[in-house]
């Protein structure tokens, strides 16, 4: 009996608009509406071009972090990588290294940190990403403190501050850079075999491995990319601050993870799209700006971020009726560490 299988993709207006990202668009618009009420001159082109300069530095981290969380992992060491690579750059520059080379060194050190994370995770599969990045979070920043103690290091060449403060053709450099990276990462995640494998691993690590996905290589690459983007963040952050010290970028991990989760990426892995976190970046960025308009202190943003993080996770669970990974009731078996190599492969 001849049976044919169709290749038409099921589609409906309803399913199209019921997506999480539309909710984010609504929130995005809402934030701007509120802001414009608080500040009469808000709705200008300048606002939209210049405000991002203040928050886009950490946005670079959102791109690889999305991949990390889709993989089913987490990385809380990103703030420390930013600090360490920034500190190394500053010290190297003041030791005589030309600034462009110092910047390159920054990226190299950051990538190396990411690679260390990846190597630890692939060599010791019994350990979860939580505990590995917890340890490296402490170690990387610790090294930064050893290098620079409690000093600040600044006085970079004048052109360096242009990176974070100037525009090119009317568009801020940081925005151009972010846009380029965003495009690259989005294509990587959604249009390449690499991205497909990431989704596979996040959905079912064992089946992916059995299907020939090189799981170790992918984890190494994603970790290194995370490090690299942390280096980029360090470049822009230091440029904007004009100086650096070992305690910079503290709390970045919370903000970045919050943005990714708010963007609809599930913490159990295998689901989510880049568009959501990208929207979330701008939502939280402009929200912060709005808070500043009414002189609400930065600490309140912390509360808001913490609440947003937890609420997003809750709402996502309800919305997409997540089944627990282990299927034994709705209590997650926190993979702070897997029980053995066979567990780690799940």
């Amino acid at each position: 009996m001849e049976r044919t299988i169709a290749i038409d993709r099921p589609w409906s207006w309803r399913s199209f608009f019921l997506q999480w990202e539309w909710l984010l668009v609504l929130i995005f618009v809402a934030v701007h509406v509120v802001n414009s009420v608080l500040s009469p001159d808000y709705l200008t082109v300048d606002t939209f071009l210049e405000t991002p300069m203040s928050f886009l530095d950490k946005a670079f981290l959102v791109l690889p972090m999305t991949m990390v969380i889709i993989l089913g992992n987490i990385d809380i060491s990103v703030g420390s990588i930013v600090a360490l690579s920034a500190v190394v750059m500053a010290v190297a520059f003041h030791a005589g290294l030309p600034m462009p080379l110092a910047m390159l060194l920054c990226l190299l050190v950051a990538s190396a940190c990411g690679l260390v994370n990846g190597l630890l995770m692939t060599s010791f599969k019994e350990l979860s990403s939580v505990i590995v990045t917890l340890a490296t979070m402490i170690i990387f920043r610790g090294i930064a403190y050893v290098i620079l103690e409690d000093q600040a290091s600044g006085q970079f060449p004048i052109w360096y501050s242009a990176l974070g403060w100037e525009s090119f053709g009317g568009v801020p450099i940081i925005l151009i850079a972010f846009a380029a990276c965003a495009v690259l990462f989005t294509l990587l995640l959604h249009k390449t075999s690499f991205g497909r494998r990431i989704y596979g691993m996040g959905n079912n690590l064992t089946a992916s491995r059995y299907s020939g996905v090189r799981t170790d290589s992918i984890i190494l690459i994603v970790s290194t990319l995370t490090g690299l983007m942390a280096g980029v963040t360090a470049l822009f952050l230091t440029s904007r601050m004009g100086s650096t010290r070992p305690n910079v970028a503290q709390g970045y991990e919370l903000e970045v993870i919050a943005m990714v989760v708010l963007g609809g990426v599930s913490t159990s892995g295998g689901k989510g799209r880049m568009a959501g976190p990208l929207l979330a970046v701008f939502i939280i960025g402009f929200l912060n700006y709005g808070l500043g308009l009414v002189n609400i202190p930065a600490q309140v943003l912390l509360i808001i971020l913490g609440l947003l993080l937890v609420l997003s996770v809750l709402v996502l669970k309800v919305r997409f009726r997540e089944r627990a990974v282990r299927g034994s009731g709705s209590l997650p078996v926190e993979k702070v560490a897997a029980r053995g190599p066979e567990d780690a492969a799940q």
Partner: protein
Amino acid sequence: MRGAPLSERFRELGLLAFIVLLCAAFQVRNHNFLTLGNLGDLLTNTAILSILSVGMMMVILTRGIDLSIGSTIALAGMVSSLTVSAHRGIHPLVSIAEGVLVGTLVGALNGLLIARFAVLPIIATLGLMNVVRGATYLISGGAWVSAYQMSDGFKAIATGRFLGVRHPILIALVINLAFVYFIEHTRTGRQIYAVGSNPEAADVSGIPRRRIVALVYTLMGALAGLGGVIWAAKFASAQSDTAVGFELSVIAATVLGGVSIAGGSGKPSGLVLGTILLGILNNALPLIKVSPFWQQAIQGGVILAAVLTNVLVKRNNQLFALRTRAI
């Protein structure tokens, strides 16, 4: 015998030996180390760490983690300090109760999110860490509470002595003893181990897993609250950035004490040794002129080393079990 399983006792003896060696080494470098005065300071500082590591051990036993305790310490300390500065006559026990209550509420919130709503512990406690820290700032209005605003009774929570022993040390002792009793001699305590050892089997065996998980986070919060009051009394100040990053020291002490990050195993005796070891490091490193800026890196290294050692030991045990398995 080559490849034989390394037992728990071996690890504890190792820790003890390491502590003794370390003390000897430190004493050689600085003769002031093993003085009564310094040891008293050491134990007092370690007391808060000990109180909190008891809670963290229970959390980690269930395969969880709690990053919010530093913020809880700050909040509890701030709340109790503010109350004292407004009502000087308050009995110190009331202040303690206040702090414990605050901590319990935070812990219960963690427990609710993690046990009832199945939020990952890392996410729930990371979020709460920041919410609580922000709340501390808000209720203090950004201002500090300093020594002169605190009553002597309040400060005596940390500085006072009973039978010649400083209060914090006594409190830590009582807490540890209660903990040993709870975790090794009560049904609920043993169920905490079971939940972490095999969550699915726990469900099947009718153990109230969710309730136990909620319990451990609530207890952690309560202990953090207690620690917060002692902290504020000891340093005679309450700030909104109190105890930032302290959770990492607590985790370090717990992991160093042999509590497996995979859950289900660890002994209170090991915990005490791990806490003392970390306390010694914190106390002695400045004494031998190690820059305080090395402390964080050392702490991170300690966690990593302890965790990796655990993994390698487990692999060795598994290999041994396979070899002895007669086909």
